[in-house]
């Protein structure tokens, strides 16, 4: 008995010390670490990942660059295009997902407008909708950080926190059972972003700038994803306008790198996006 009560702690001490030593990296121990060899890269065997959450922010930034420093009043675009959403008016997860995509796009225009009031309003609506989709308070803590940075005028920090907030929300939707809601957020977000950008282009058309709408690859993939949604989701009254909206939008944004989108086609895209978003919000 004495032998067993002695050997057990000794054995444990040895295991623990082995474990702790194992946790030290090669750098810390000063010894060369055995690094598994570099695997060859073969793009044809790559796994396809989810489609990204589209952001009108890049297009707005590109418009500013193309306009060569001309001051653009994004706040006016926001006032004309953004839509306030009451989470209580989204009766189910499908409706909440569509509304969330729209508010995320609006939030990014609020950041570009550098308007605290608009940003706070979007952040509040995004929080309410994300909660409806099952996001916890912990997953939404970035919304508070985004507001704090907006109040300090640190807009790049607001963009960063808003980006992590979106990623946190999307994480809750990356579970298999939420895959459809995730696709709907991406789709409605793209449509609302298109509304913001086409509104600006209609107000101040410039053929040289209109190429910012070019997006054949992403819109083609989005169109495919939406069509592949389950029949019951496609039959949802707020979703049913989306497949044809993407189908009609695709040829309008499938242009050459140096081509322009005519004013008529910008107007067409705007009305397609207007209809899809109004339908998504049951308006």
């Amino acid at each position, binding site marked *: 008995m004495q032998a067993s*009560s002695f050997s*057990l*702690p000794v054995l*444990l001490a040895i*295991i*623990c010390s*082995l*474990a*702790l030593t*194992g*946790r030290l*990296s090669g750098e810390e121990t000063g010894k060369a670490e055995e*690094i*598994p*060899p*570099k*695997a*060859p*890269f073969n*793009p044809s*065997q*790559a*796994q*396809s*990942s*989810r489609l*990204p*959450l*589209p*952001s009108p*922010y*890049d*297009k707005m*930034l*590109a418009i500013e*660059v*193309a306009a060569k*420093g001309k001051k653009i009043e994004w706040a006016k675009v926001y006032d004309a295009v953004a839509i306030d959403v009451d989470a209580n008016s989204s009766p189910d997860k499908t409706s909440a997902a569509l509304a969330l995509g729209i508010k995320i796009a609006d939030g990014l225009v609020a950041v570009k407008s550098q308007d605290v009031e608009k940003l706070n309003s979007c952040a509040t609506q995004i929080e309410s909708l994300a909660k409806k989709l099952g996001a916890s308070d912990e997953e939404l803590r970035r919304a508070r950080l985004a507001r704090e940075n907006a109040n300090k005028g*640190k*807009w*790049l*920090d607001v*963009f*960063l926190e*808003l*980006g*992590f907030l*979106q*990623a946190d929300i*999307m994480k809750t939707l990356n579970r298999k059972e939420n895959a459809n809601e995730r696709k709907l957020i991406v789709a409605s977000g793209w449509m609302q972003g298109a509304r913001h950008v086409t509104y600006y282009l209609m107000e101040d058309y410039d053929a040289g700038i209109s*190429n*910012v*709408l*070019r*997006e*054949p*690859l*992403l819109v083609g*993939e989005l169109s495919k994803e939406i069509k592949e949604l389950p029949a019951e989701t496609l039959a949802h009254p707020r979703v049913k306008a989306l497949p044809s909206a993407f189908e009609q939008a695709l040829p309008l944004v499938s242009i050459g*790198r140096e081509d322009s989108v005519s004013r008529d086609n910008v107007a067409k895209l705007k009305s397609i996006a207007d209809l899809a978003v109004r339908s998504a919000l049951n308006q």
Partner: protein
Amino acid sequence: MRVKKAGDNKMTRISRALCLAAVGLLGIDSGFADPAEAEDTAYRMARKYVEKGFAMAPTDHSGVCGGGTAIEFLIPVNKGLDYVFLVGTDLAARDVDIYVYDDVGGLILDDRRPGRLAGVQFRSSYNGTTKVYMHMASSIGLASWYVLVGRRGSIKPETGGRVDPTAAQSEGGSSAPGVVGP
């Protein structure tokens, strides 16, 4: 016959708990991915580029994979903007690479340097989409990864010099295409 004492039971329970903890500790580095660590690494990398005037955000592309895995994803880009694509990982990752292709399959840039972090910076010459590959070239067991994208508008020409680190909280500065030190 050996008589079991109350003290023996307690000792056995403590021993079992310690054994489990030790086995757990042994396994952490070698077999378990740590997504939170990859995200923290990415966040720290992002902060550095925010100070350089980039609007940084995660791409919602993150995950856990083993060595040799490549993940393909799309990232929209716009003409004239400077972009930085960064991959942050956890300690289980030993070598991660990133490849960026344009929408007709031409390679824009890659970062194949050995290391747990990868990053490229370039100015987009077109509006559209890039096809990005994250390649976990080497890892010990499963590793976590997290991709970030930064964009910055600048009406200044591409200079090929280094990014101006004093361009904090502004949208400007020069652009240095190439791999970047995350």
